[in-house]
């Protein structure tokens, strides 16, 4: 294991995503002399010319990763490359998500371990807990991961989280690793489902339910990813603000006029549209019905209660500015 204090090169998987690019910039500011290599199977929308941050488009295969690890002596790995359900097209099948998310992730971790990486930061999601009427407020990291019980679509997400955490504890004496489960990340640089949902002029919202939500600003998330490198010991951490906001209030703050519809009408429409190829993940409707609020008490012990620069209001209002 290399000394964690002498970080020289970092690999970021999922570099085409906005969060990965923001994280790379944060890391570059914190450690000006390090070399950052970002990889993705997608093309970068904008060409990046930042010093010390290079981008490579590669196919996610074992051979490509092995070449990469052998050619560069990485100290740290940021695995931010979860395949989003929101941007999948019809040709992207469940098996592809399993191949990359589940099988691929473990192979990447094994390679990292065998080739001397000292720390891995893996980005999971709060969706693994599942939205349910009987969720208590503030689920901690030990809460059961129930998402895939209700929606088979989320099997890969839950199983990948399981794989990562199992691998982490199995190898805890050999390599440091952090698994982060953030709440909804929103911001102008990322185009996940929740950001799209909030920034539309009118989004359907449930008339018959009004659950509480948590949102984290993309810049805050990037900073937490950066700080997790040195400040978080091996373990699983929820990432969320202490406060919550009701979904209708959140839409209103974003200037989204909304379509009030009973969810009993919206759900069948979504199921029908999904059959026609709509990318909107239908499990999100469950998250619009019932709460899935996570506790940040563990991460706050290490990063402090004031580790977020944006409060909920500022986070959501930043999306309004982006629309203008």
């Amino acid at each position, binding site marked *: 294991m290399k000394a964690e204090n002498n970080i020289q090169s970092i690999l970021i998987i999922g570099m085409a995503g906005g969060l990965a690019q923001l994280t790379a910039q944060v890391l570059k500011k914190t450690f000006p002399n390090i070399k950052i290599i970002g990889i993705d199977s997608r093309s970068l929308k904008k060409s990046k010319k930042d010093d010390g941050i290079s981008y490579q488009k590669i196919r996610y295969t074992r051979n490509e990763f092995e070449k990469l690890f052998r050619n560069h002596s990485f100290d740290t790995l940021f695995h931010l490359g979860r395949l989003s359900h929101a941007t999948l097209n019809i040709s992207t099948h469940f098996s592809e998500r399993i191949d990359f998310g589940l099988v691929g992730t473990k192979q990447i971790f094994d390679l990292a371990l065998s080739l001397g990486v000292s720390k891995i930061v893996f980005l999971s999601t709060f969706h693994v807990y599942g939205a349910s*009427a*009987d969720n*208590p*407020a503030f689920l901690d990291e030990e809460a059961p991961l129930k998402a895939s019980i209700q929606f088979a679509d989320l099997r890969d997400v839950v199983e990948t989280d399981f794989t990562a955490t199992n691998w982490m504890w199995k190898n805890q004496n050999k390599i440091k690793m952090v698994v982060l489960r953030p709440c909804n990340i929103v911001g102008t640089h990322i185009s996940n489902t929740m950001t799209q949902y909030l920034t539309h002029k009118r989004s359907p919202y449930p008339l018959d*339910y*009004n*659950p*509480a939500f948590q949102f984290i600003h993309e810049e805050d998330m990037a900073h937490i990813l950066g700080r997790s490198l040195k400040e978080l010991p091996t373990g699983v951490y929820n990432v969320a603000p202490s406060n*919550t906001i*009701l979904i209708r209030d959140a839409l209103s703050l974003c200037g989204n006029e909304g379509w009030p519809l009973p969810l009993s009408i919206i759900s069948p429409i979504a199921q029908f549209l999904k059959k026609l190829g709509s990318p909107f993940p239908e499990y999100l409707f469950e998250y619009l019905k019932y709460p899935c609020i996570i506790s940040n008490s563990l991460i706050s012990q290490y990063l402090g209660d004031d580790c977020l620069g944006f409060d909920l209001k500022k986070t959501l209002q930043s999306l309004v500015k982006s629309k203008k």
Partner: protein
Amino acid sequence: MNLSLKSYLSKLSQEYLQPDLKKLDEIYDALEIQYEGKNDPWGLNLNTHRKCFEYFWFFYKHYFRVKLHNKNHLENKNYMIIANHSGQVAIDALLTMMAFIYEINPPHLVRGMIERFVPTIPFVGELITGTGHVLGDRKNCLYLLQKKENILVFPEGVKGIAKETSQFYKLQDFTTGFLRLALQTKTSILPIAIVGAEEFYPYVIHFPKIAKLLKLPVLPLTPTLIPLPSPVDIYIGKPLSLETLPSQKSTEKEINNHVLELKNEINDLIQTGLKQKRNYLGHAKNESRK
């Protein structure tokens, strides 16, 4: 003539159907200050709370004629309120929550616990959580008590509320988890007795076997479909001092003994209340004999 009749009816409806709005303003202003800057992940909404209070005011004041006794036992701090459960439907909880808001200064907003199926009911779930109810989950209780909120606990559970006529005012077995939570959060326990709610439905029989077949928690049968206007008296007992309670590490037997003591205390309050119980016309037993 028409005008005076209209103004008379308007005045009557204002006096009869609405609470003292000036007092209500003061109560909710005080609550706004109490909750200012506090975040509520369960969806408490003071505007919804106030609206519901106004809608139920007539029933609270003129239909169930609620009276709160021994208010002097209360201090300005949060409590875990332990009560007997009765009346087939949870109207006793609603009336208790209203009494602790309206009759006590400063107002005590009490958080009631709901069953797991309630949040799944469209529209109803939002209304219920808006009025401060939370899912009856141990973690929720713990979090609320740590935040110095008042919570209302019925340790008898469904067995308490769904009793046959022959079992009225007979306390069922208490669960014990609440005492450990109070000890963990160093919250004072406030025993209360609700007298009058059993008579909402004076004749009830239950069919537990059919209920089990239909997968229902209870299946009561009663000739009176709507709750009858039985006056409700809420008796506040003396708060239990934490010094007299066992420690958090106590054995289950020690905890059980204290829960039994608490149950006896609530039973004493019920028996005291039954001696002074008002009939459907609102007269206490002593008064009606005169």
